[in-house]
Structures are given as structure tokens and as C-alpha cells.
């Protein structure tokens, strides 16, 4: 009895602490920034950041930046994920395709996508294609590997049962193998969501004309530290929302559980 009561009291306290955690740190940040022990140009208080963000939104630039970044991430993710799933199914299912492609993919995969920025600039200049390329590159290998492994882990009994029932090859790949590997694929896709944001940063830092990271860089050049921090917060919030919504989506994707 008393143990139960004590643990529920501890629980209530920890909920309270969790709710107050962010406001408390923000308040402390505000106090420290205003106390005069730090340079407010380099370390502005949250109120300054909030004003910068409000101005960013009011000017209409925020929406344009958001859309530019979102479009890059979404398109890159879609193309990279689709390619990763299709090739992952083929290399996972067919030995010959795997022998052909897997060695190449395993060599290319560990190279951090950011390292490709110089060559992407040589190839594509500052065009959107180059940015798309970076995001696709980052997403593709993660999704490919997860799919490849997932396909090899598909219950052999399911494949044999499907074979016995006369399942044609296209249906075998697009239904039995794909859905059999889906739990693995969704894990890969979720990792790829955060990777697509990492590569977005590299892509926009390399030179862009709009975008959240581009805005951060411009603000840095103008010493608008409040705007830089606001940009970081926006980026953090965006990738957090993307990750959470993907997690919810992924749970629905494996609908039979």
C-alpha cells in the first residue's frame, strides 16, 4: 500500500518536473543573458530570439524558407526511399543482383553524404538538382540496407506457402516480400528521416537562395544571433515533428499487428 502511494507520488512529481523543465531552462537563460556576465550580441536572451522569429514570420520569409527546405527534404526522401526499397527487394531476393550491386553499395554507403558537397557543386553548381542529389544519396543507402536485410529475414515458410499457392513473381515481390520485410523497412525509413535533415543542412550550407539553414547562415553573416538561434529552433522543431509523424505513420503501416 504505502509503496504504491509513494511511487504514485514520485510519478506525479516527475510529471511536474517534466512540464516545468523547458520553461525553467528558458527562464534561466533569460536571467543569465540579461545579467551582463555574457555578451548579448553573441548570446541573446530568449526574448530577443522570439522577436527575431516573429519578425521572420511577419516578413513572409519564414514561410518561403520553410517551403524551400521542406520541398527538398520531401522530394529527396521520396526518391531515395523508393529507390532504396526497390533495389533492396531486388538485392535481397536475387543473389545475382546482390552480387552485382551489394559490393558497390557497401563501398559507397559509409562515405558521409556531406563529403559529397564539393563534387556536387562541381557537377550541379548551386542548382536544386545538386541539393536533391545529396538528400537522395543520404536516404537511399539507409533504406536500401534496411530493406535488403529485411527481405532476407522474411519468414521462408511464408514464401514457400505463397509459392505453393501459385503466387506469380510480381505479386511475390510486391506483396509477400515487401510486407514480410515491412517491419525492417519502416525502421530504415525512420532513420532516413533524420538523415534527410542532416543532408539538408549540408545542401543548404553549400549555397542556396532560400531555406531554413540558408537563413541561419545569412543571419550569421549579419551577426543576427537571435535569428540564428530562431532558425536552429525552427529546424529542430521541424525535424522533431517529421520524426514523430513518421513514427505514428510507421505504426499504422504494419497494420496487422
Amino acid at each position, binding site marked *: 500500500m504505502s509503496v504504491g502511494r509513494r511511487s504514485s507520488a514520485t510519478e506525479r512529481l516527475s510529471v511536474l518536473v517534466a512540464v516545468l523543465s523547458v520553461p525553467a531552462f528558458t527562464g534561466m537563460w533569460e536571467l543569465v543573458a540579461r545579467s551582463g556576465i555574457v555578451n548579448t550580441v553573441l548570446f541573446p536572451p530568449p526574448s530577443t530570439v522570439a522577436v527575431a522569429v516573429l519578425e521572420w514570420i511577419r516578413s513572409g520569409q519564414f514561410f518561403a524558407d520553410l517551403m524551400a527546405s521542406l520541398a527538398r527534404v520531401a522530394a529527396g526522401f521520396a526518391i531515395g526511399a523508393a529507390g532504396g526499397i526497390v533495389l533492396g527487394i531486388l538485392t535481397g531476393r536475387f543473389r545475382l543482383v546482390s552480387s552485382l550491386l551489394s559490393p558497390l553499395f557497401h563501398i559507397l554507403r559509409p562515405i558521409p553524404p556531406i563529403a559529397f558537397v564539393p563534387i556536387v557543386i562541381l557537377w550541379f553548381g548551386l542548382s536544386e538538382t545538386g541539393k536533391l542529389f545529396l538528400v537522395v544519396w543520404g536516404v537511399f543507402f539507409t533504406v536500401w540496407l534496411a530493406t535488403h536485410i529485411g527481405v532476407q529475414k522474411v519468414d521462408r515458410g*511464408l514464401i514457400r*506457402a505463397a509459392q505453393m*499457392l*501459385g503466387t506469380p513473381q510480381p505479386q511475390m515481390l510486391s506483396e509477400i516480400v515487401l510486407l514480410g520485410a515491412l517491419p525492417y523497412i519502416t525502421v530504415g525509413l525512420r532513420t532516413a528521416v533524420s538523415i534527410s535533415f542532416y543532408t539538408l543542412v549540408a545542401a543548404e550550407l553549400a549555397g542556396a537562395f532560400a531555406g531554413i539553414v540558408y537563413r541561419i547562415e545569412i543571419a550569421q553573416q549579419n551577426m543576427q544571433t537571435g535569428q540564428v538561434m530562431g532558425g536552429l529552433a525552427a529546424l529542430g522543431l521541424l525535424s522533431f515533428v517529421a520524426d514523430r509523424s513518421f513514427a505514428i505513420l510507421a505504426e499504422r503501416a504494419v497494420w496487422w499487428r
Partner: protein
Amino acid sequence: MTPSLLRPDQPLRLVDTYPPSAAARQAIIRVEDLSIVFDAPSGQVIAVDRVSLAVAQGEFVSIVGPSGCGKSTLLNAMAGLERPFGGQVLMAGEAMRKPRPEIGMVFQQPHLFPWKSVRRNIAHGPRALGKPKAEALRIADGLIEMIGLTRFASAYPHTLSGGMQQRVAIARALANQPSVLLMDEPFGALDAQTRAVMQDNLLELRERINATIVFVTHDIDEAILLSDRVLIMSAGPGRILRDLQVSLPRPRTSAIVAEAAYLALKRDCLDLIRSEGRRAFEQMEIKT
């Protein structure tokens, strides 16, 4: 007292008929000198060792043998799922190299598609063979009724008990109306009552669809009750030890197991299996 199915003028015969030369001529399944070898970490394992057998059109043949003797492997080879190391499997005169939809298989595990409801699992085969959706679902609904799972038609496999899953697996195999049905301990996971009902269903079904059935089981009662012939396999490496004709009149029901003549047949089978089982166990002891 249930009336006797055995008439006194029909004596029980226990005949060793291998090689079944008469049956072989009209055989739909012919296994010729079949060997299956697996590569295991500890070296090569001979799962099936030069097995030959023939099953006539419409015949019901059971395979009985100690655990690990290669029954599942033999059945998989008949299904075209296992590549022969030596010899071959002929189905209607054609060598089995890959699975064919006219040969149905019920595996030892249900292997239902987890993302499909009971109804869609059963409809999978007809759909895969190009039947329209409505027709496939109609076939499925009829079979769901037969296995007594109408209430669970839209349930997903993981919400069913092991026995219910196995009934769905049987219905799924029947949906393609196979001419040959291979069944690997299909009733192993069922309780005694459901098992008896399913056995009667299978006997009745067989009269209706006239399928050739090869049936693996551990249960000698079940083997004698259902079969025209019982093949007894030796302990691994798997070979066929005896080929016993079950000359009990049909139609049979589960009541048959109380007959004296039946019991004599069963005792003979059990003696054979018991000595083989002991040998298998001793072999395992020596190996490890």
C-alpha cells in the same frame, strides 16, 4: 455399442506391398531413388536416403516415422520445394522442379500471411491464379464454413489459436482445388475433439474431391483410420522401412479404433515404430 465397420468375412490384412508394381503403373506420384542432403554447420546431413515410393491416383497414403527422420523433407521434395541431391520426384509423369498450384500443401506450421484476414488468406490462392475477387471470396467463405470459423472470417491470424490457424492453413490449401494434397502433421496442434472432427471432415472431403493425399503424422491411430497405405520410415537417414496396406472397409469413422482387428494392426505398427524410435534415440546419443 457402435455397429462394427468390419464384417467378419473381411479379414484384416497386413500386407507388405513394396514395390507396389500394380499401383506404380497408374501412379500419379512417383518418388524414384530420392536423396536429399542439407549443408549444416556440422557437415552434410542426409535427410532422405534413396527413397522410392509410388502413390496411385486417389490414394490416401500416410507417412509415419520418428522425429527428424526426414518426413517433412520428403514432403517438401514432393512439393517441388527441395532440390533432390539424387533421384527425382515425378508428378503425373513430370519431374518436379518447382511448386505447382495443382499440388496443395499444408505445412507443419500454419505459415499464414500475417497481414491478411482469415478470409483473404484463404482467397489468396484463387486470386493468385487469376480468379476474380468476388469468386475468390465466395470460395473462401465456403471453406471458412467448413472449418467452422465463420465468426473469425475477418480476424487476423495472430488473434487465432494455433489449432484455428492450422484449420485456416488447410482451407487455404484446399481453395485451389488441388489434385494432390500434401499434409505435414496438419492436426498435430489440435485438441482431441477438433482433431476427430477434422479427421471426419477430411475423410468426407476426400470422397467428394477425389484428391490424392499424402499425409505425415505421428499418430498411428490417425494414420490407420485415414489411409489406404501406411509407410513407416526408419530413423535418420530417412528410408522407407515398411509399406503396409490398410485393408479396412470404407467409409470409416473414428469408432474404428475400438475394433480388435484394428488393434492388432496398430500393435504391429507400434512395435515397428518403437524399435525404430529406440534406434533413432541411440543414434542421436552416439552422435552427440
